């Protein structure tokens, strides 16, 4: 550990110097230069495979500056790559009547930050007046930011991971006072970088308080600790929603699952796994929980070669929980693919809007708890004959239309495809697809069947009354 720590410290110093040099030499004019962070608290939750960061920023606008309509957040390039979601709220009102107003966050196109850092801007609902103080709560989640080290472990080893971040808050603003807390799942912590003052209490490490940090300061830290939570990563998730106006919404979800933690190496011994579960294969997982909507019916769980017989469904009036077990326990680097399908009553999801259009209201994201989805696709297959579809999703997604064919389709069904990368549990929010549909199309398929049967009988009658012989014998 010693050499890696020393290199970490030296690189830290270098970076610090570099950051300071850059901030001094070329501090470009910023529109919101006037804002100062009075106090900042950064709480990093490392208990699950997804890194969750809660930031509390107390901001003050300069007395002489103009009104500020946005607040900037800075992220390093690696963080931007793994950033799944950023949410911000602003506390409004005094003590007792304090309410949190959600604010919209978008990637800023200001290329003003040094070292390739990217800025995100929080748009304030009411501009920050000169000398006004406000508090912002920011939440963001990072995926794939825990690096297993050692990268390969045997069946009996626990899983150790690295987490890299900065002790001080990376911010385009002057930070007057700041603390960082890092919370880990257990107190089995191998090592952590010390940037005084640094203290550790049980499973929590505290950095700070640091005073008077210049804009864009960065002090790299490295935490090495044990994390045996299931690193379930869904590499590809495709959900197909088929709407039938005869009363059913059929959902089919395809998963390509991977254990994203440290690679399993060497022997897999079933004997060890069965007889010593507490020390053997701790980072592996063998079941997952999917939270499905209530009143779900005809649930199935299968893969390319057939049903997987190990799953349990518990449902009550609020939710249904499907506990699924892959065919084999997943160790680091192991893959498995499967499909879950279920039906839902149409009246719970399909509504009519004020302008006469219909819309289906569904939940975005993947129903598996505590998983990262690298690549998510949602296909909403509208009934045959529906027109002018329009999807309303509260965040940015790639959208396009295609046509799919199913039972007895002639012209095909309009399908709305939504795609998003890097999806976490916080994305499980409702979204809507609006479309126009004439109920007369519902009768098309039954009429086709009826006419087919009718024609068959007509053909039989005609055959019985025909004489096909050439000559009279």
């Amino acid at each position, binding site marked *: 550990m010693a050499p890696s720590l020393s290199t970490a410290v030296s690189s830290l110093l270098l970076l610090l110097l570099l950051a300071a040099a850059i901030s001094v030499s070329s501090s470009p004019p910023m529109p919101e230069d006037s804002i100062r962070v009075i106090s900042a608290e950064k709480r990093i939750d490392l208990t699950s495979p997804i890194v969750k960061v809660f930031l509390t920023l107390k901001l003050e606008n300069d007395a002489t500056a103009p009104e500020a309509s946005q607040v900037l957040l800075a992220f390093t390039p690696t963080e931007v790559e793994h950033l799944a979601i950023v949410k911000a709220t602003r506390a409004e009102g005094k003590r007792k009547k304090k309410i949190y107003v959600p604010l919209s966050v978008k990637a800023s196109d200001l290329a003003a930050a040094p070292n390739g850092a990217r800025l995100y801007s929080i748009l304030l609902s009411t501009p920050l007046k000169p000398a006004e103080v406000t508090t912002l709560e920011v939440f963001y989640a990072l995926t794939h930011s825990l690096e297993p080290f050692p990268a390969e472990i045997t069946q009996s080893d626990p899983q150790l991971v690295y987490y890299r971040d900065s002790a001080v808050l990376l911010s385009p603003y002057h930070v007057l006072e700041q603390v960082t807390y890092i919370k880990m799942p257990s107190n089995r912590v191998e090592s952590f970088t010390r940037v005084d003052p640094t203290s550790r209490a049980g499973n929590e490490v505290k950095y700070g308080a640091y005073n008077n940090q210049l804009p864009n300061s960065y002090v790299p830290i490295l935490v090495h600790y044990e994390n045996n939570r299931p690193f379930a990563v869904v590499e590809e998730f495709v959900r197909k929603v088929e709407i039938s106006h005869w009363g059913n919404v059929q959902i089919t979800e395809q998963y390509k699952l991977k254990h994203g933690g440290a690679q399993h190496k*060497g*022997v*897999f*011994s*079933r*004997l060890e796994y069965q*007889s010593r579960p507490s020390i053997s294969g701790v980072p592996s997982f063998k079941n997952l929980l999917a939270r499905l909507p209530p009143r779900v019916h005809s649930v199935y769980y299968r*893969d*390319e*070669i*057939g*049903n*997987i*017989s*190990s799953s349990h469904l518990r449902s009550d009036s609020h939710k249904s929980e499907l506990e699924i077990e892959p*065919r*084999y326990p997943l160790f680091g*680097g*192991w*893959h*498995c*693919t499967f499909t879950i399908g279920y039906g839902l009553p149409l009246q719970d999801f399909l509504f009519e809007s004020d302008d006469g259009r219909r819309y289906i209201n569904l939940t975005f994201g993947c129903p598996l708890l505590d998983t990262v989805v690298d690549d998510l696709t949602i296909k909403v297959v509208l009934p045959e004959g529906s027109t002018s579809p329009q999807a309303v999703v509260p965040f940015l997604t790639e959208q396009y239309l295609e046509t799919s*064919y*199913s*039972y*007895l*389709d*002639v012209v095909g069904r309009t399908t709305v495809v939504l795609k998003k990368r890097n999806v976490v549990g916080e994305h499980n929010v409702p979204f809507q697809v609006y479309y126009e549909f004439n109920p007369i199309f519902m009768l098309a398929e039954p009429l086709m069947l009826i006419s087919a049967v009718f024609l068959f009988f007509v053909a039989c009658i005609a055959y019985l009354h025909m004489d096909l012989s050439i000559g009279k014998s």
Partner: protein
Amino acid sequence: MAAATALDSLPAPLRSLRLKTKQQELLLRVSALALIYVLAFVVRLFSVLRYESMIHEFDPYFNYRTTLFLSDHGFSEFWNWFDFESWYPLGRVVGGTLFPGLMVTAALLHRLLRALSLAVHIREVCVLTAPFFAANTTLVAYAFGREIWDSGAGLVAAALIAVCPGYISRSVAGSYDNEGVAIFALLLTFYLFVRAVNTGSLAWSLASAFGYFYMVSAWGGYVFIINLLPLYVLVLLVTGRYSQRLYVAYNSTYVLGMLLAMQIRFVGFQHVQSGEHMAAMGVFFLLQVFFFLDWVKYLLNDAKLFKSFLRITLTCVITVGTLALGIGTASGYISPWTGRFYSLLDPTYAKDHIPIIASVSEHQPTAWSSFMFDFHILLFLFPAGLYFCFKRLSDATIFIVMYGLTSMYFAGVMVRLILVAAPAVCLISAIAASATIKNLTTLIRTKSKSPQTVSGKSSGSKAAAKGAVDQSLPFQQNVAIALLLGAFYLLSRYAVHCTWVTSEAYSSPSIVLAARGHNGGRVIFDDYREAYYWLRQNTPSDAKIMSWWDYGYQITAMGNRTVIVDNNTWNNTHIATVGRAMSSYEDEAYEIMQSLDVNYVLVVFGGVTGYSSDDINKFLWMVRIGGGVFPVIKEPDYLVNGEYRVDKGAAPKMLNCLMYKLCYYRFGELTTEYGKPPGYDRVRGVEIGNKDIKLEYLEEAFTTSNWIVRIYKVKPPKNRS
């Protein structure tokens, strides 16, 4: 009749809706047939309801894989497919070594359903192909029964074959095997041929040739047709039943059938060159000679002259024929009979000469119990049916008698050929059942003196005359009723038995094992798929898997990995090499595995669950097959006083061979049953003899949750220092 009188009182327009007797009979017949059709399909769905819609057993997985390939890549590529994933490093010319009928049928059905815009998966089509064709077989059985006896017998035959366990065993949903469509094709060919013989029509003969072509494309069992037809013709010739109709039927069927059959790559020129097909050709020439002689006899019109002519011609023909056959065989132009064919004629042949055929359980001679199990009352009705057939001999009944007798013989030789006998047994039994019941009902009806109820067709003048004579016998009506009730009781027992057998014995997919748990609930052992899916997901895509050949098809289909040997046992030496590796010490086996680029070794082990058809129980066959090619492997080395054991008293070679080590690796530390020492094998019922197994060249890669499948990784060779 009450209904009829009620109808009479109806107004005139409605009265015209009343059916005539003939129409009533037709309606009854069609609805009975429709019900039988549905029943034949539905009774085969037990496996889907009990388990799931999946492909069963071993060979069907190959068929499924090839069907997928066919529907994905098209026929041309399928026909020229060279499969690198099996028989590594040899590969297999799949297009030229399979019967494509089944795959083409399923792919066409799938395409048809798609064209009707029914979005079904090809797997569902494959799973339901066998039940669909079984249902079609009932229609053919009806037509066949009508052809040889009457429509009543046809209906009974259709009903019997719909649920006959001997046939169901190979045609439940999911058993996607050649036999599924082949029995339909077989019966269709026979029916069309009998029809052609009865009518002498060229159209029926050609139809029969096309039926034969379908059969050839579907199953190797077509050899049975191509030998039974000439035998039948020969019997007709000998019994003096030669006719122009026979001449037309046989010649056109044979010539066209032969040409069509040669289009199948797997058959090709074998059809004119191999010993199995010679009988058909011989009879073809014989018929020409016969026809020629007949003609000459007609021309000469002189008995004495004809006799000398006959003598000369016959001598010439026999000499030429024997010479041709002799030269052909000697020069190798006509290939000798294959081992499989020999083993049919001589049941002990395979046991002595071809262990690979003898090792398959379905190639064993049939036990009486399985005859009873598969045929039930048909076993008693069959001789009765033969009696009826002999009583009313015709070209058609002679055919069915011959079909029944020969197929019964083959069914006795090999368990799996019960399937071929099933249609014949059903037809002949149907004749017995139908004729008996008809006689009994005629008796009852003539007694009750209501002649208008007897429908015109069923009361033959013979039966009526018989009834008149029999009126003198006492208690005749009562006895007839009792016998009738007995017959119905038997038939209902048959129905009950068939349903029970289907649901209990023949609907298990054998991939998924089910057992009863302690509390009476059903426990599922899904270990095979667990292991195959693990292979599919977590090994390099070019990994080579070595296992005993039984699992080859499943590994390639479900695991999507290359195997060394599989169920297409075309190369005995390759299989023997694997057998040798399994029965050698680890270091010797390692060399063999290195030479075959093996990455993983898969063994099936039932010691934990008590699953008895595992590799330890199959091991002696590996030794025998391996020893058949490599004399280093000697069976006695693995036995102690001729006894096969795995406990402490086992032979030292047994305790240290690769198969033993892989099956029992770390098994000695596991307690399988309460009150038994650790390492207690629940299949063999003994404590294993070698509990301290160390592996040097392999390491455990995966073991399924019930230990049924164990996969080992072959370590790369050590660096040379």
